[in-house]
């Protein structure tokens, strides 16, 4: 399951990267009005939200794998995993604040 999620989330992020690159090229560069114009669009907010969900889930699996490989004591590993989860969920909350309070 995690194996599949890691790959599907990667594909979502590739698609978003291509979308963002295309939007920047389409607008001939980025300035404040173009930038905020993107975030004013509901579809772009939703795409950005999906990107962040994919990124944070992807980051969780990756960090957990690294911790499993290098941190042997179960207590310390559990602590670091807990910190990681709290941090990533906090990032998701921050993302939602940014996206849905954008002017």
């Amino acid at each position, binding site marked *: 399951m995690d194996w599949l999620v890691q790959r599907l989330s990667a594909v979502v992020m590739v698609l978003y*990267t291509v979308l963002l690159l295309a939007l920047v090229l389409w607008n001939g560069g980025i300035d404040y009005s173009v930038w905020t114009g993107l975030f004013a669009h509901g579809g772009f907010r939703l795409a950005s939200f999906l990107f962040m969900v994919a990124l944070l889930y992807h980051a969780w699996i990756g960090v957990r794998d690294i911790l499993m490989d290098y941190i042997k004591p179960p207590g310390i590993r559990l602590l670091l995993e807990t910190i990681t989860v709290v941090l990533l969920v906090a990032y998701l909350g921050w993302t939602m604040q940014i996206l849905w309070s954008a002017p």
Partner: protein
Amino acid sequence: MHKSHRAARAIARKGLNLASLPRSATRFATYPNAPAVRHLKQRPVYLDLPRIRLPLPGIVSILHRISGAGLVLVGIPLLLYAVSRSIASPEAYASMKASFAHPLAKIVMLGLLWAYLHHFCAGIRYLLLDIHRGIELAPARRSSAIVLVVSLALTLILGARLW
């Protein structure tokens, strides 16, 4: 020097190649307590890290980890902070842009850019390997070299534009 010691040193130097070793060293295949084996148990020569040269796919793999860790630790918080400030107001956008012009900020951005590009390219390579594209030794080595070169080249090209 005892024959088995010489054999153990040969293993440490050249890696384990049974054909190149004296017969005394290959005895452990049949006699698990032969001197050569006891010697190896005391000194794990297989894990003598400075002697192990990581092959190209291994280098891509460890850089995939390092770049991923860097992106999580520095990239995500910086991305969120930069986006939140930059859409707040025209003044905040301008000051964000100005702070990215600082040489130190540019070096950090260059590092993050490379991390993203390397992670991106290596990730695509893994997706292709997953669907059994280029899994033979030679193509796998070639694709890992391509990942290293392309991500570095793109970093330089995009970095030059940002600078």
